[in-house]
């Protein structure tokens, strides 16, 4: 009998846990540890943030789903990993602290044969003073609760505009090292769309601020949409869209501080500026969730297992080579920890070897460039791939049997630019590979035969269909295994 413990139940963790449960016989255990009681389809949070969906539309209770398929669900947060065991246990284990199920605050040890770290990120609002909905002045759409709060503030702004008061909106990224520009991109256009629907667009000044060095970078160094046999850059596409919708942009920006109604930022040229706002949604930077790791003798070995940013080290090249030497082969393939072969990390929880976009710094030394995204489709694919490897290792394989390098993987993305059955729009994009491979595809590093995009109403319908399809899949309803990641 083997026990697989999955820390986290986001897209990648949930995918890994549910497939393992489906593939492994009842003699094996699958345990999921997550502090959340609900599963959240995060891509639809932007619609919650503009009042086009409610929180209930994008979440569901995990307990009944896991009970139905026999996954041992613990509503708890992981505290530490003990890969060599410890005084309490000779076998590897994790310590957890319950956040629900009537055991709030209780601690427990769970031993494991295989561990998948899928904790996702810590939303590091603390990295920028005044950032975030709890201790700051900006809203967020990173969780369903944040998005609900964002909508409340958004509706207040609309009410003020209906009363004739002009409002300033600032949407984007709240730090020089943010990822998830795509979510902010979706939100700014949904805000604009809703303001038009509400008939108050003329009273709104909408601004975009981000750490991208060019509009349309999206944290992946931009992408190229095939048109007429040639590629069009996402920069031209994005600039046209922002201009068409009347959204001003500031790029290459590190938000250094937020005060009530005012954003302070530094640009890549070292200059600083201020931007005033009445409503602002800024994505926070991500960090590891702060898991600790201990050796058998109890000594702290967090640095051995985790990268400095708190994400778990896997089979990537962390030598810190300069940009000109970055290669596709630097990226992990099996997501197995090099020191402890029974530990894997999936989704945002694995430490990327370096960025995808060109790394840049201001003359003051402030790094201002997007960090690589590991969400959405790649996240699900990585979760399933790791599950396949662990299944095979439980059945006798000596090493991981499946690979899913982001440098060999394509991804599809549907970015909403406004919700509506007849007037919605979304950009549907595919990119292959996610991480450019400059050796295999000289020039832009991507295969244009598999990189294309369109914007329009059909894209919105696809996004809406995907919303229902992925929630159906996550609820493990009949045929869920047939739905791709």
């Amino acid at each position: 009998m083997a026990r697989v413990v999955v820390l986290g139940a986001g897209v990648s963790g949930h995918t890994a846990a549910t497939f393992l449960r489906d593939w492994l016989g009842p003699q094996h255990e699958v345990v999921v540890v997550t502090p959340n009681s609900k599963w959240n389809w995060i891509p639809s949070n932007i619609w919650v943030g503009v009042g086009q969906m409610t929180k209930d539309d994008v979440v569901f209770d995990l307990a009944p789903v896991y009970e139905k398929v026999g996954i041992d669900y613990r509503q708890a947060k992981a505290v530490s990993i003990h890969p060599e065991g410890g005084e309490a246990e000779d076998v590897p284990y994790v310590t957890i602290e319950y956040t629900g199920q009537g055991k709030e605050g209780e601690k427990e040890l769970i031993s494991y044969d295989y561990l998948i770290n899928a904790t996702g990120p810590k939303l590091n609002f603390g990295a920028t003073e005044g950032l975030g909905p709890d201790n700051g002045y900006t809203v967020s759409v990173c969780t369903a609760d944040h998005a609900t709060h964002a909508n409340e503030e958004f509706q207040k702004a609309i009410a003020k505009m209906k009363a004739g008061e002009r409002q300033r909106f600032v949407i984007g990224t709240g730090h020089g090292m943010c990822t998830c520009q795509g979510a902010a991109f979706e939100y700014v256009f949904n805000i604009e769309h809703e303001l038009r629907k509400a008939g108050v667009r003329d009273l709104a000044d909408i601004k975009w601020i981000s750490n991208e060095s060019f509009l349309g970078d999206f944290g992946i160094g931009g992408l190229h949409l095939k048109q007429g046999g040639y590629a069009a850059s996402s920069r031209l596409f994005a600039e046209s869209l922002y201009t068409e919708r009347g959204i001003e942009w500031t790029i290459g920006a590190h938000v250094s501080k937020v005060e009530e109604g005012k954003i302070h930022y530094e640009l890549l040229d070292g200059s600083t500026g201020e931007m005033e706002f009445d409503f602002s949604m800024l994505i926070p930077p991500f960090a590891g969730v702060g898991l600790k790791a201990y050796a058998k003798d109890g000594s702290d070995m967090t640095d051995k297992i985790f990268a400095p940013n708190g994400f778990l080290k896997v089979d990537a090249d962390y030598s810190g080579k300069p940009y000109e030497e970055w290669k596709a082969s630097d990226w992990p393939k099996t997501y197995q920890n090099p020191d402890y072969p029974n530990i894997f990390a999936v989704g945002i929880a694995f430490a990327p070897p370096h960025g995808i976009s060109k790394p840049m710094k201001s003359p003051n030394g402030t790094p201002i460039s997007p960090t690589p995204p590991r969400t959405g489709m790649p996240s699900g694919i990585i979760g399933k791939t790791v599950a396949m490897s662990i299944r095979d290792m439980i059945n006798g394989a000596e090493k991981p049997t499946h690979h899913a390098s982001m440098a060999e993987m394509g991804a599809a993305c549907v970015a909403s630019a406004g919700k509506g059955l007849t007037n919605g729009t979304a950009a549907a994009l595919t990119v292959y590979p996610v991480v450019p491979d400059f050796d295999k595809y000289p020039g832009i590093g991507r295969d244009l035969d598999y990189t294309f995009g369109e914007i329009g109403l059909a894209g919105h319908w696809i996004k809406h269909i995907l919303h229902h399809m992925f929630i159906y899949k996550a609820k493990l309803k009949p045929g869920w295994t047939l739905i791709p990641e």
Partner: protein
Amino acid sequence: MSVKKDLLVYPDERIKIPSTDVRKFDDKLSEVIDMMREVMEENGAEGLSAIQTGYPYNIVIVRGDDGNILELINPRILKSEGMAKAKEKTLYYPKIEIEVPRYEKIKIIYEDREGKQHHMEAEGKVARVIQRKIDYTFGGTFLAKVDKATREAVEKALADNGLVPEVELCPTFSKRVYFLSVADKLLFFIFLSLFSKLFGVSSETLSKIYTFDKIGILIVFILLVGYFIYGRYEAKKYSSCTSCQIGNMLGSMAKRGVVAIALAVGSYLFVNPLS
């Protein structure tokens, strides 16, 4: 000099290739920049983007206000102010001059030949040229910045001079349709066979018709698979043709697949002499 000297002129479609950031600041980079300076001087240009010489790298050179040539590697426009229209010419579209809206003042960041990052402000004519050249590095010409009527007028003027883009043409007839055509004919005959019993044919003949139906249905499915495989081949060959999209093909296959299954059931019920 090992780098080839070239100047792309309309209708050379390579101009639309998006340029990649320079990652290696080596001798080859210097050679490309030197070649670009030569091309620029020879043609009396105000500026040049590397892709205009056939090199898809983010390199722009521009003559500054003081007459010196500015070398901008991996340039990005960080800030912009004001918007104004002015007439522009570019080497890519010979003898064409149109009004293009551009920012009046810009702030850019860029790197030099050694990879050191710099920033500068530019306004007026220099700002205008820098913007045009940066657009080239992202695969855009100045026609991307003007309205449709102007764009069409320019394209017509170019066509009148015998300059027509080499557009990839989608064939009006696809050979993969042969697969569907044969499948449709087979399905039609199978459909007719459903009425065989109405004509009082013998059991032996019915048995033969039933065998035809079974083989026919099998061939229909083989043809549909062949249609898909050949369609994918064509999709690769004519990559800009929307009718080659996989969705269209799956739709055509699904429709005939459903009909084939329905006819198979009908044949089993109405043609099979043993039923």
